[in-house]
């Protein structure tokens, strides 16, 4: 990437086009535990830095709470209020308030994880490998099913999925498989894949323009060198575009989780 020094210029050409290799980071530390291989990479470090940053930010935001908030308290409460009154309440009504803390945590965590993609020097989102989105999607999946079962009981909850309310009996042969697939299989998969794919593609896009710019600049052709400006310019434009995508993806993930929770809580789902 841009941070790579020029003396590696011989390898830079070979780095273009960027590929899957750019998602494999140097293993900083490796250990085995219960037969499972753990690799500590740049992404692992970033993951924990995200957690630490959020914990520090929110801890400071509630450290000295006042009725009329200070700047930091206001920032923290804005994030919470945005999810609470912008997602949880509109989706689930008053019942949604009790999910607002989790949804805020989810939203902020995804946003920070995504933001690594455009934070200078770091420039790799932890969500660009599918493991983290899978974890978050699985938690959402377990959460909304658990909430539904707890509210309606196993029989009524799964009954509502297998036999959608209001559907005539003769259509069930078609509707039931669709419902089962969409609710119990497609939801977690799409949640994880949507977030991962957007971040993966976004990272790839930035790599293409940045590496491409470097490759053009390093070429012997003067025209190519000139066009490297265009490539770098696109990298900047795409960085701004990615900034939006990162926020939108965090928003989509959170609001879909809220929507699934609402569906599980609804009397007829």
């Amino acid at each position, binding site marked *: 990437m841009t941070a790579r020094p020029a003396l590696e210029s011989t390898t830079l050409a070979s780095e273009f086009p960027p590929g899957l290799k750019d998602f494999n980071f140097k293993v900083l530390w490796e250990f085995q535990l219960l037969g499972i*291989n753990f690799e500590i990479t740049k992404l692992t470090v970033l993951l924990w830095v*995200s957690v630490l940053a959020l914990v520090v930010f*929110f*801890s400071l935001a509630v450290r000295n709470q006042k009725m009329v908030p200070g700047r930091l308290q206001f920032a923290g409460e804005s994030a919470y209020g945005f999810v609470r009154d912008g997602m949880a309440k509109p989706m689930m009504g008053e019942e949604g308030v009790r999910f*607002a803390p*989790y949804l805020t*945590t989810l939203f902020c*965590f995804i946003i920070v994880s995504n933001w690594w993609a455009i934070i200078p020097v770091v420039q790799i989102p932890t969500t660009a490998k599918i*493991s*983290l989105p899978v974890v978050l999607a699985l938690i959402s999946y377990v959460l909304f099913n658990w909430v539904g079962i707890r509210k309606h009981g196993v029989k009524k909850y799964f009954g509502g999925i297998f036999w959608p309310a209001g559907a005539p009996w003769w259509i069930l042969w078609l509707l039931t498989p669709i419902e089962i697939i969409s609710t119990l299989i497609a939801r977690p998969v799409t949640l994880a894949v949507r977030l991962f794919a957007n971040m993966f593609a976004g990272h790839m896009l930035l790599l293409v323009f940045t590496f491409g710019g470097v490759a053009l600049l390093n070429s012997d052709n003067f025209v190519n060198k000139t066009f490297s400006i265009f490539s770098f310019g696109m990298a900047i434009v795409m960085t701004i575009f990615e900034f939006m995508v990162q926020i939108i993806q965090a928003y989509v993930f959170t609001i879909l989780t809220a929507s699934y929770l609402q569906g599980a809580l609804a009397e007829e789902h």
Partner: protein
Amino acid sequence: MVTAYATQLATVPVLRAQEEEEVPVFPVVGELIIGTLAFAVLCFILLKFVFPKMEQMYQQRVAAIEGGLAKAEAAQNEANALLEQYRMQLAEARTEASQIRDEAREEGNRILEEMRTSAREESERIVARGAEQLAVERQQLVTELRGDVGRLAVELASKVVGESLADEARRAGTVDRFLAELDGLDTAGASR
């Protein structure tokens, strides 16, 4: 151009083979566990220590605002009630005042009338008494005068005539006749 592409194609599987162990599309168990752990830690801290405080703050703020509004409304209601009360009291006071004025006027008239009546009565009484007294005094005077005049007349006559009128019966008759004449003169004078 074509040959370059072909060589690139040829090198791609080699590259893949070298870096096959990790493709970002497939989740890695170790990463899943670490990810879960990290997110669990984040959730634990934020859900336990941060958001309850924020929610509490929200509720307090809502309570403060709604409480303030309710208080303002209560104060407004109280003020309205008081105003209504004052208006009613004012109206009552006005009615009462006009009533009192009317009564006072009536009372004044009554007192004036009473005073007039009693003054008239008093004056009539005084006049009547005066007249009575006058009559009594007059009677007294008349009686006194009658005696005096009789005696003086007798004395005068005695002196004039030079003789004592010894005959009482004749004297009394003379005097009485004289007085009667005098009375007749007197009443004629009064009626004139």
